């Protein structure tokens, strides 16, 4: 059990007296005091929901976005966007949309990335969020000033002068799928090596001999696109996975799965059903040379791809083991075999990055993983939270929405009723981690923020009830 430390250290502090704030500002005339306003970093899906929900709770908000438009990862015009031309959602529409702003019901089960972007643009416009966002502005540092407030330094993207402003709270919605995590492969390679973040267009694959490394959703999608474009495709994975189809029994697979959860079908039985369903449909993938999964169904982030087994079956994708090293024009595999691709795409995922925060503010562990209550609340800083730092077994947006509602409610309670806020902190400090993150998953960086969407939403629901305004 982890103790939710900040709730103890900070909540007993009285709200900072105004006079003191004024004096502070006086002392440092170059810092603009934004008083009760909250600073939000990022205008992707999570940041947009955060602005909206903070506004609904009566907060003034300044959101900083280093790009020139909203949408974050889903805005393919952004340099750091990880989406490629053919990206479609893997979570179906009802499990992906915000709970209070549905996607059009005329859209397909699995919308295209351009639809997700237009959805986020419409969300921003609908709720008038644009006027609270400063585009082309990067947050370069945020420092606590001791009374729960934050000095936030911003700078125009691409240089320019910086500016410091003081805020009552800081909410990072900076996303965790934009900084490529590249593998260290020893040796030299004569061909081209790119990370999947640089893969945008199937034309990049045309008539090439392509090796795709990584069995996450990106790696599988690119292997499939390569199967349609390239002359030869190898797909290297360092373990076996459960490749789920997008549809089962004529319905989007996640909707069928949630039907099982609705009826509280126990995990063991769900695992059995999963194995049976795959055995009866896609069948045994080891016959194509893939390793047997080293974990049970539901013990890794879902990989949803109906076409991968199809192209394995057509011999268009050759399954190969992990890469051992580069050897000039060739790539040596873990089993000693050598292959000769001319393009290597490392689809090895992304790493979280919080360069604007000193690592201890979010209890960053030596491997770079922040340790936050509910993956959201900083343990020692009651006015610091992160929204969207999750990898659920369903769409992210509903979870990010409720996270931001909880953050807004928390800040409101802290401001209006410090005594109740103290009671909430007390209670939360006893919340055991397995109650909100109970799925057993393979120990791998990609599972740092893996949560079971139901367990997580239940924990959010409890937290929201604890903070319910007194009648």
């Amino acid at each position, binding site marked *: 059990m982890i103790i939710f430390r900040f709730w103890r250290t900070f909540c007993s502090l009285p709200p900072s007296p105004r006079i003191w704030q004024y004096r502070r500002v006086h002392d440092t005339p170059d810092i603009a005091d934004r008083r009760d306003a909250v600073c939000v970093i990022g205008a992707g899906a999570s940041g947009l929901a955060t602005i909206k929900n903070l506004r609904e709770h009566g907060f003034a908000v300044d959101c900083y976005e280093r790009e020139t438009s909203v949408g974050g990862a889903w805005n393919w015009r952004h340099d750091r966007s990880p989406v490629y031309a053919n990206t479609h959602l893997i979570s179906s529409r009802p499990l992906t949309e915000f*709970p*209070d702003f549905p996607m*059009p*019901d005329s859209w397909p089960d699995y919308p295209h990335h351009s639809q997700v972007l237009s959805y986020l643009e419409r969300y921003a416009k609908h709720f008038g969020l644009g006027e609270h966002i400063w585009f082309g502005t990067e947050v370069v540092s945020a420092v606590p000033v001791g009374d729960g407030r934050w000095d936030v330094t911003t700078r125009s993207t691409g240089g320019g002068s910086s500016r410091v402003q003081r805020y009552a709270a800081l909410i990072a919605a900076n996303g965790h799928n934009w900084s490529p995590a590249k593998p260290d492969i020893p040796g030299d390679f004569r061909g081209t090596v790119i990370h999947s973040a640089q893969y945008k267009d199937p034309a990049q694959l045309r008539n090439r001999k392509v090796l795709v490394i990584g069995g996450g959703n990106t790696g599988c999608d690119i292997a499939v696109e390569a199967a349609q474009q390239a002359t030869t495709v190898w797909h290297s994975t360092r373990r076996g996975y459960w490749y789920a189809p997008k549809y089962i029994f004529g319905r989007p697979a996640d*909707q069928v799965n949630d*039907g099982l959860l*609705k009826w509280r079908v126990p995990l063991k039985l769900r695992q059995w059903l999963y194995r049976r369903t795959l055995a009866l449909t896609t069948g045994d993938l080891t016959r194509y040379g893939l390793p047997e999964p080293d974990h049970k169904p539901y013990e890794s982030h879902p990989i949803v791809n109906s076409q991968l087994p199809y192209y394995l079956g057509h011999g268009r994708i050759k399954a190969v083991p992990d890469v051992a090293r580069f050897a000039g024009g060739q790539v040596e595999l873990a089993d000693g075999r050598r292959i000769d691709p001319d393009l290597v795409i490392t689809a090895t995922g992304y790493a979280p990055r919080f360069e604007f925060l000193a690592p201890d503010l979010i209890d960053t562990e030596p491997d770079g993983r922040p340790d936050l209550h509910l993956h959201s609340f900083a343990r020692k800083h009651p006015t610091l939270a992160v929204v969207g730092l999750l990898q659920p077994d369903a769409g992210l947006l509903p979870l990010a929405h*409720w996270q931001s*509602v909880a953050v807004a409610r928390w800040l409101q309670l802290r401001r209006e009723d410090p005594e109740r806020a103290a009671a909430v902190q007390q209670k939360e400090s006893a919340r055991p981690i397995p109650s909100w993150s109970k799925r057993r998953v393979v120990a791998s960086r990609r599972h740092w923020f893996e949560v079971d969407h139901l367990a997580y939403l239940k924990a959010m629901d409890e937290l*929201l009830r604890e903070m319910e305004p007194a009648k």
Partner: protein
Amino acid sequence: MSHDLLRFDDWTSPVPPVEREVLSRLVEGEDEHEHPPLLFVTGPGVGAWAFAEHWLAHTAGRGFPAHALTPREGGDLRAHVHDVVQTAASLPRQAVLIGHGVGALVVSRALGRYPARAAVLVAPAMDRWATFGAAIKTNPLGTLRGRPRLNRKQLFSASLPAEEADAYLARMTFAHRLAFPKQVPSPVGKPPVLVVGSPDDRVVPRKSLDRVAAHYGGAPLLFPGMGHALMLDAGWAEPIDATLDWLTKELTAAS
């Protein structure tokens, strides 16, 4: 209060989509976005036309883009709520929801799903027994049918010419009663909510107006002498003008 975080119904059996009829009167020119759009909702069996008669144009004339939704045929409460939320979310700006009769019941449920800018419940048929009691007094035969019918006396005052009233009645198809749970969700985003009605409404009694308004922490705005169909009855301009005045005041207070 439940926050309704776990939505198995929507996740496992989404409401089947339909083509929705939405009639609109837009505001032209510069102040297009000055005011939020209004979305009017009737009960099943009526339709957007009932608002298109007078209220839509009048509302647009006062600078508010006005839209009215025709409820789908058949469909349970969940489907009607779905249609309202879908339509609201399709509008360019955060919408004000205005429901009439059973449409107000639908709007009260939609408020739990969509953060409306504000909401107005006009002659809300949200109290099953009170509504039934009032209806059976004036129109026992119509009320006891499987598809309850309303008659001229219930819907309109004597000041509306009989031919006009009958023409309106002829356009109403009257739907099956909607089954609905008693629990009214707390509106998300805490919008201001106004209840509008008539003490002489023979479908929704005065007590019921008071009760619904009290639920939202207010008192009803009353238009004596009018029948249940406030948007069609003689004197239709008064309730919509008062509603828009209220809305203007709320919007200025919030900004």
